[in-house]
């Protein structure tokens, strides 16, 4: 993991107010988040109708992956059950929106926004609970417990079928598009992708600031050496529970976006494969790096799409990201973001301003 905190020492002209503003991390994270959002919006506006679904999918993955990368890379806790947390967000979304459907079977955008916030909050609470248990566990025991949680949730959903409608799941009505977009002949998918991009931008901004804040440093301290962190006065369980809850919240957001895109939720959309897919995205992107999580999500989502379009064996996408996972872990544990930063270091420094590794 790279920690680039030396930005100020390299400045020949420290006096420039503009530069000082740039080094202020909140502003810098804001700019980075804005860049991510802008690139996302550009994609939403330019890609064709067949690809836009993948963009929406990518945004859902990216939300979860960013939270997971902060948990694993930033705090040293593993979770193999994030798909279950996504399911919590998705079902919250469905339960909230369903009764608010208008005659046209579309819901106002404001309700969707509210539902997203609610999904985040509910998942945050569930994450707190799971985090409390998780904070007592280490390494393989934590992996086992989260894995078990991940596969247990679909069973619970099926069991309480009067609430969740069992195997069939619940429908999620599409959002009511603003007239301008409706007039531009946008498909609902494209609008969902738009919402997803905003969600990714917000998640990126929040997590980047958390990582840079005292909280993020506490998480990292716990990850690096629990005993040392404890001797510095940190409460290990508290740091681990908060990290887990924050990570869960983003998983809830991602799950809600996914539900919006799929226009429904059922227990099977949130299985072990999804947990492993997100984990793959995080690892391939580079553990601990937010941008890496986005790269990784893009790779996993588009690999599936591209290979599916090429009419090759349907198992090829899985095979290739399984292989990628192994190769990355053995040969380049820094993942894509690690390779990019190394590449960046090789190039001559044109600007003295070096972006921190988010």
């Amino acid at each position: 993991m790279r920690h680039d905190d030396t930005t100020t020492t390299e400045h020949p002209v420290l006096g420039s107010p503009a530069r000082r503003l740039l080094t202020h991390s909140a502003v810098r994270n804001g700019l980075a988040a804005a860049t991510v959002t802008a690139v996302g919006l550009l994609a939403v506006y330019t890609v064709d109708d067949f690809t836009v679904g993948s963009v929406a999918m990518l945004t859902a993955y990216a939300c979860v992956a960013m939270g997971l990368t902060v948990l694993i890379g930033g705090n040293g806790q593993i979770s193999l059950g994030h798909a279950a947390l996504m399911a919590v967000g998705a079902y919250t979304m469905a339960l909230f929106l369903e009764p608010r459907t208008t005659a046209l079977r579309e819901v106002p955008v404001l309700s969707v926004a509210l539902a997203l916030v609610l999904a985040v909050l509910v998942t945050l609470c569930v994450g707190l609970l799971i985090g409390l248990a998780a904070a007592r566990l280490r390494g393989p025991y934590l992996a086992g417990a989260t894995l078990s949680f991940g596969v247990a949730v679909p069973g619970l959903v099926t069991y309480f079928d009067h609430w969740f409608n069992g195997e069939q799941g619940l429908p999620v009505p599409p959002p009511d598009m603003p007239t301008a977009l409706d007039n531009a002949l946008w498909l609902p998918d494209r609008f969902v992708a738009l919402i997803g991009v905003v969600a990714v931008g917000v998640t990126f901004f929040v997590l980047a600031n958390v990582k840079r804040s005292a909280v993020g440093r506490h998480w990292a301290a716990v990850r690096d050496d629990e005993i040392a962190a404890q001797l510095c006065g940190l409460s290990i369980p508290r740091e681990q529970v908060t990290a887990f809850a924050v990570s869960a919240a983003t998983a809830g957001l991602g799950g809600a976006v996914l539900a919006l895109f799929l226009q429904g939720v059922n227990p099977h959309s949130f299985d072990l494969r999804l947990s492993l897919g997100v984990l793959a995205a995080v690892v391939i992107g580079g553990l601990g790096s937010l941008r890496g999580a986005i790269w990784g999500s893009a790779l996993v989502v588009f690999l599936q799409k591209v290979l599916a379009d090429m009419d090759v064996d349907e198992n090829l996408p899985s095979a290739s990201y399984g292989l990628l996972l192994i190769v990355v872990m053995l040969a380049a544990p820094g993942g894509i973001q690690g390779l990019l930063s190394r590449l960046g270091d090789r190039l001559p420094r044109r600007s003295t301003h070096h972006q921190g590794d988010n």
Partner: protein
Amino acid sequence: MERFILFTVNGLTLGAIYASMALALVIIWRSTRVLNFAQGAQAAASAYIAWSVTDVTGSFWLGLAAALVGGAVLGVLVQQTVFRRAESMPPLNSAVVGVGLLILIEAALGMLFAVDETRTIGSAFSTKSYQAGSLPLVSPQDLFVVGAVTLTVVTLGLLLARTAVGLRMRAAAFAPQTARLMGVQVPLMLSLGWALAGVAGGLAAMLYTPTATELVPTVLDGLLVLGFTAAIVGGLDSLVGAVTGGLACGLALSYTSGYSQPDLLLPVAFLLLIGVLLARPQGLFSSSRTRKV
């Protein structure tokens, strides 16, 4: 009462199968501190090998033998190609490598064995229960399952505890540096561990697949999760723990699906796991005496 007997027998049989998978995971964890998520896929591959052999020869027993041998070979292969480099890494990295291998092997099986054909692995013996009066007690297949797993556990236990090879394996697992000074070929012993784990995994596959509707690459994912649960409940380090954990899981799940609903199987497994871990964060039979921090 009749239902209770039925569920208990069923639970013990299932538990034996979980124990077999748990053994595979425990053997590898003990010796290399690798959490082998690929074990589920490796076991599935053993089952496919068995299916192929049975398909050609018509003999279930040749298939079973092939699954066990194939499992051992695959275990060594996987260790030599992938895990030997991951062994020195933090457990998180090697766990991720295992996940990658799980996805890769299952996808590869999907490519090799097209879905246009329905494959099944039959049970070795009849699944019709012997009756005591009107009470159905236990089927020959149940006895075979429990017997095969018991035989494996006892053999493994004796091998590790009583033989020179077992002593070498334990020394190599607990203290590789010291073992080398004593003339133990550590890499060889570790490979032997992977081979034995492969045999246990292959056996689990051959006992579990008959209860599934069809042999597909992901057929053993559920077994992997439950075997993992059993291993963790038992403490990951202990063979006795793996068997206890397996039987506990088997009984809990059998009663759940019998008296309640099959939907609750995995939630109950989760409750069992989290309940045990909250009381003992290192499982029931862990040999680690002190917990870090």
